[in-house]
């Protein structure tokens, strides 16, 4: 098992939130290799949007809120429902 750390920064409030979840290392490797890497920056002209940083092992991805979908979306939702205080 490895620990996946998800950090959400930005947004109108500028308040960072962090969630973690445990995952089988093989599942994480499959996710990273199967999912297309999302564009790292938000669309031009936008403001106050969330940015997600997802870290597991030595891999780290930055995903703008506007492109958080598919397996990454599922991952964030899983971490949030498991990790809400």
């Amino acid at each position: 098992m490895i620990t996946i750390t998800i950090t959400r920064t930005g947004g109108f409030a500028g308040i960072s939130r962090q969630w973690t979840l445990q995952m089988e290392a093989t599942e994480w490797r499959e996710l990273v290799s199967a999912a297309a890497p999302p564009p790292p920056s938000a669309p031009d002209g936008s403001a106050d949007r969330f940015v997600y940083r997802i870290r597991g092992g030595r891999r780290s991805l930055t995903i703008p809120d506007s492109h958080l979908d598919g397996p990454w979306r599922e991952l964030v939702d899983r971490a949030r429902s498991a990790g809400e205080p």
Partner: protein
Amino acid sequence: MALASSEDWTSVLLMRCSIVPPYLLARIAASADDRAMPVVARAARRALVESMPVRLARNAAPEAFRGRDFGTERRDLRAATRSPQRTISDAESTETLPGHVVRREGAAPVGDAAADEAYDGLGATFALYDEVFDRDSIDDRGLPLDATVHYGEEYDNAFWDGTRMVFGDGDGEIFRRFTVSIDVIGHELTHGVTQFTAGLLYQGQSGALNESMSDVFGAMVAQHQLGQSVEQATWLIGAGLFTDRVEGVALRSMKAPGTAYDDDILGKDPQPAHMDEYVDTPDDDGGVHINSGIPNRAFQLAATAIGGTSWTGAGPVWWAALRSATLRPDADFAAFAGETVAAATTAFGQGSLKREAVVDAWRTVGIEPAHPLPEPAE
């Protein structure tokens, strides 16, 4: 010369000249009770700001244009035909934009708090830009105001997506719906205005300035709507957004950055009040929502020192700086500070106390205005 673009000349020519001296208008605007004399107070506020660009440009106006008033009718016609073109849509807790339309311009309230608050807040923001800064919507060409409410599930945010304003409902435990605070609505619409004027890059210091413009004009929307003087104003951004469970009064304090909340879950308000505490971080586009506390406080200090109301005192100075032809999209705090000093010099005079108030405000937060200052008047 900060105010010599062709756009500014157009607005100068379209501007009505006021026969009441500005200092008197300021006193009327500040002292007229809005409940007892709403028309007087409103007219004075409007005339005061209308008179300001004329004063800013008068010394530099070509001789041929001096004393002529041929722009009056055109300006009245232009202003009289202005109205916001609001369309409020409902995303029904999805993250699909725009959602379905629930209220169009002129339609009656629909009975949904978020939709009606967005409609009213956009109206109040349009009114500030129209009445005070003579701007016709986001692009000064009557761009329709589109907003979406009920975005996402328990969505703790409001944002500008480049074309529309989007408001979440909050999670109900920490955040309430983001339309409850009118300055949040003014904040989001101002992101559009900044996009169409200075185009401040959303990264580092220029990004924090972009954020600060949204807080500054968002605060002015709230103060203008309530008729508050600089002393009466709370200078809070997002008051009412937190639920009762959170230890905090608002998301940000322009008067005392870093003091808006201190909560077990959220931590402490991270905004610095001085350049010495500037936060270097890769998160949040380089801390744009954190370091905005520094220029926010400079505005609050300048507005308070100049006195009266924010939208008649310091507001027009910041507005002139935002639209200055020499303000670059990658401007840092010192460059923007210089633009405000240049605008204050033109508006109030080189040796005036109000210009000194602007310089002092920036120095108090640790910023030395960088713009080459205009030659002293002879």
